[in-house]
């Protein structure tokens, strides 16, 4: 057997080992019980100050809906947003959570095929959050975080807030008790 053949066989062996390992890993992940993945998803969801998230998000959403009208609610000062959400770290937690929300939607998609539309919307939202957080990381490196945060930070938070609403809507379609009442209240 010449050297060239040895190299060729070695290359094929590595190629096959990587392919089989990747396929085996995927197969193992797919075979894991749904309950187990649901538990791990719940564990991965990092706790955030939901009241602050909703307050900042609604400030932006209501502002865009009622532009030109007097706002009777408690407006969030741009300078407060950074503190309320816990700075760039807080926003990075929302970014991580947004990935978990997508996984939760995908998880429910197995039970409810109609979850597909919401899952796609959530994916788009997560990309938006990623983009906003990416810009803020750049701003932090340039020392402009405080100037950029109110604009990009509030948009990322509002997007995250909408993601949680959409996910809850999805659960509603799964006939989860009491969620219909919540939707009426909204």
């Amino acid at each position, binding site marked *: 057997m010449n050297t060239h053949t040895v190299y060729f066989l070695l290359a094929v062996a590595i190629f096959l080992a990587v*392919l089989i390992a990747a396929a085996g890993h995927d197969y193992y992940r797919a075979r894991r019980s749904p309950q187990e993945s649901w538990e791990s998803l719940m564990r991965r969801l990092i706790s955030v100050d939901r009241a602050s998230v909703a307050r900042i998000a609604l400030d932006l959403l209501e502002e865009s809906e009622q532009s030109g009208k007097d706002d009777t*609610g408690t407006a969030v000062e741009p300078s407060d947003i950074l503190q309320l959400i816990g700075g760039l770290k807080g926003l990075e937690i929302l970014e991580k959570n947004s990935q978990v929300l997508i996984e939760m939607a995908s998880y429910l998609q197995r039970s409810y095929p109609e979850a597909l539309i919401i899952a796609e919307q959530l994916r788009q939202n997560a990309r938006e959050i990623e983009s906003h957080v990416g810009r803020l990381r750049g701003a932090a490196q340039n020392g402009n975080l405080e100037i950029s945060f109110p604009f990009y930070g509030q948009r990322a938070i509002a997007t995250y807030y909408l993601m949680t609403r959409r996910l809850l809507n999805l659960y509603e379609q799964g006939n989860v008790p009491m969620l219909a009442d919540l939707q009426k209240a909204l």
Partner: protein
Amino acid sequence: MHLTGLDLFFWAASFLGHLVLLFVLWKRHRAKLFPFFTTLISTNILRTIALYMVVRLGTKDNYFYTYWSLALLDTILQLCIAYEMASHVFRPMGVWASDVRKSFFWLLGLSVFLACGLGWLASPPTRSVVQALVIKTNLFAAAWMSELFVGMMTLSRRVNRPWNTHVAAIAKGFGVYSIVNVVIETGHTYFGVRQSTQAYTALSHLRIAVYLGCVVYWIVALWLDAPPSQQLTEKMRAQLFTLQRKVEYDLQSLRSRREL
């Protein structure tokens, strides 16, 4: 050309297997969902008939050119099936998600590069340049297909795209077949056809046997309906209920804050 009993058996089994699979695709209304896959199965039926006729009535050269022309068509259709599977998984709403599109192009580029690398490294002992080219091209095609199908599975897991039962069955079949095919094409490259075609023929028979196994798997998997949707477990319901209560509480707090 002399055909052994085993050759005839594989020929008949392949013809019958594809006929049954085509019937399943039509009867269970899967043909509309998988047009490229259905085209490949239909083409394979026609190919079996055409090659049989050429063997009986044509020359060795006729057979060679017919076989390899149809093999090229087979590879093109397999590529189309990879695209069909990707469409089902990565653009279920008719639009490619931007993050997936980028990863998918990376997968395409990398898979072509690696498959070209393997094809370039291969130096089969053959009697002519055409034979060497055929073996190298087969290895390239097998490596490329296996990378595409396994890569798609990995990518779908990474971006949390669930696989529809029937899409998964088709992709799994092609995934397994193409990985085995890489081993077989490696054998073809190693043994070559310079001194004897015995090893080449034995490996080709093995490939057909594996492919027939895939056909049987597709017949069963595509005949069966997708499993019914799962039910939410009691624990999940309780967790979702708690989550909903928390959200309700937050909203009430927000409302009272705004009323101040």
